[in-house]
């Protein structure tokens, strides 16, 4: 099932796009023969608009517009069950990641802005404190998404049970973490 927005798009293939994804992910996408094990194993597949095996076929065919409009890559949590089971040894999660990267590189809004923002808040806390900090992550995300009203009761309950720390845990070599981020940024990653 295609995302509704994508159905209207012309299905013209762009054969040059598949090699781009292959290089970005380091996976030989062509090896996929469409068995569907990745879809069968994916815990998020029922919620996806484009199933993992279909997405692989779309990448092979070079259906750039349709793939970049799909929300499926943003639902991928990177559990790698697909990679474990793929008979051709393809790391489908890495391909999903490469698709996300391609979407970001193109610029413009991505299909799931909320998920992208969540990722960014996560990385922000890691860069600041050297470790993920749920407190800042959830507060910042909630504010940015305008969900404070809904999330506040949950946040308060978590804090009361000692599950949400207000003060972050600073690691000792935060400078090195920041250096990591700088190096990746220089190489074009986000």
């Amino acid at each position, binding site marked *: 099932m295609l995302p509704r927005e994508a159905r209207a798009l012309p299905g013209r293939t762009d054969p040059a796009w598949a090699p781009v994804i292959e290089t970005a992910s380091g996976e030989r996408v062509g090896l996929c*023969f469409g068995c569907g094990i990745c879809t069968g194993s994916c815990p998020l597949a029922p919620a996806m608009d484009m199933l993992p095996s279909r997405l692989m076929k779309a990448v*092979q*065919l070079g259906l750039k517009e349709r793939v970049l409009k799909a929300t499926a890559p943003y639902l991928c949590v990177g559990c790698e069950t697909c990679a474990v089971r793929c008979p051709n040894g393809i790391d489908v999660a890495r391909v999903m990641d490469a698709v996300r990267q391609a979407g970001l590189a193109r610029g413009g809004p991505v299909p799931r802005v909320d998920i992208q923002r969540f990722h960014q808040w996560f990385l922000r806390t890691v860069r600041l404190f050297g470790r993920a900090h749920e407190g800042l992550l959830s507060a910042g995300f909630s504010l940015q998404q305008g969900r404070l009203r809904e999330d506040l009761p949950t946040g308060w309950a978590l804090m009361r049970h000692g599950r949400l720390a207000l003060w972050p845990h600073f690691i000792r070599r935060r400078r090195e973490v920041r250096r990591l981020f700088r190096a990746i940024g220089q190489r074009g990653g986000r």
Partner: protein
Amino acid sequence: MNGYGTALAVCTCGGTLCGRLDVERIVAAPGFASALVIHDLCLPAGSARVASWLRETAADSLVVAACGVPAAVQAVVEVSRAAGVAEHRTSLVDLREGCAWVHTQADQATAKALRMVASAAAGVRESTPPVPDVEVRPSGRVLVVGTGPGSLAAAARLKDLGCEAVLISGTLERFEGQAGEFKARIRTDQGVECHAVGAVIAAGDAPARMPAVQAGQRVAFLLEGDPWPSVTESTLSAALHLARDCGCRVLVLFRDMGVAGRGLEELYREARGSGVTFVRMEEGSLRIVEAGGEWVVTLEVPGLGSVTETVDVLVSGATDALQGTRGLAEVLGVAPRKGGWAPRERALLEPVATERNGVFLIGSARGPYTTDQAVRQGEAAAMAALSVAAPGVIAVSARASVDVERCAFCLTCLRVCPHQAVTTALGQTMRVLPAACQGCGVCAAACPAGAIQITESPNRRLLAEMDALMNGPPLGGRPTVVFACANSAVPALQALGRLRLSYPAQVLVVPVPCLGRLEAVHCVRPLAAGARRVLLCGCYDRSCEHLVGPATARRVVERASALAGTLGLDPGAIHVASLAPVDWHKLGQILGVSCDDGDRNGGEASKVTAHATA
């Protein structure tokens, strides 16, 4: 027909049938000169007793009511020989798997048994002696057409087996005769050659060559072969080479990626890894339009909607047989299938044989096979050809024969015979080739004069058996007559019997060699005699060994239904059903619901089916 009469011997299968059938009533069946009950037909003592009794009665025909196992069949043959009764004057009735084990109510089962016995008696009285044996003398020579790997392998194996292989490269122009004695005329570069051979193994032309493709171009391969396989070794290697070495964009559109066999699986993987894109086409999902020197390919991909790709080169029909191969099948008298390959796919067929005895097709005559597969087929064909072509003498009796007094020389039988078994020449009568005839009866049904008949069961006999079957003690409901094809419905019925699944006793079975044996009159006659339904149970279209059975049956049912209507009978009472020999559950269901008290008398057979298909 002299009046010594027909004798009846009933075997109670060690007494076990006594509980399910009223054996006394069966032994007292009317119309027999004498009757005997025994308990052990399949044992030497039992059959000896029958033989000596038969000699005493001086009967000229015999009906044995027993089981249907091979031991019983053999026992009847021995009895007939020992007592001096012609074998064609004997008939074995299976009262066990065909009656006692499948019908739950003893009175109905007995009534059916009486009808079956009466039918067999009517049949033996109309039986005709078999056609005298004809001697076929193969010379040990086998014609091998083609010089590819398959043909060479066949020729080498033939030599090992002691046969002479005539290996020829050329066009087969004429081919006639029967297995063991064929005459072939071939046109080669040096002229025309004629050969007398016992069998022919033919391979087709070498696979198609690729059209010229330049580096960097976009190529699409369109593989629409039907059925399996639709991908060839040459296609995969070409696709790989273009993608990996020539920088081409390669798209392969296929129906069935059959890559079993050494090397193909690895080749396929390598092609995928090198960037060849494989897309499976659904039926009717493809549209190709030529636009300005380019090809615009649009297809429906499941889950991805409509996809369009533009290519520079389109390689299509890569798996269709070449013209030469099509001509080959025609000359050899073998029906082709889609794509030009031959023979038509049939489930029960050996891997290299065709519907014509003694004609074997291998390699690129049969399908887009790889070199490996062609070599194996060549060797298999050589071994199979041995049985019909090895030097010696084979005595064959034709299973069909022509009554020249009735024959009008319309050539219908020659044209409809699926096995090329009817021949003639100027100044000669119609002749049946004994080594080619497979006894299907299609000719007998087609002959307008009834001049050609199956010797084992001429029309008079079939009608007499049917009439006797319809006249008998009540069965507890109107009968349903089932014409059962020997290759599908008969084994299915035997399976029901062996599994002891019950179906209504109103089902009366008339076995036929093939549904192609039947004409409209056979279907209407039981209706006129009071049957509730007439079922023609046979093979699927793709499985018919005689090619035309199911299609003939459908035509016949249409005509018969119209005929029934004009006679004031129920035109909707005649049906065709297709089965495989293993479809006993399907048959059980059909039988269960075809009788008057569908639910009550349905019996276990249909209930098992209901459970199995729920």
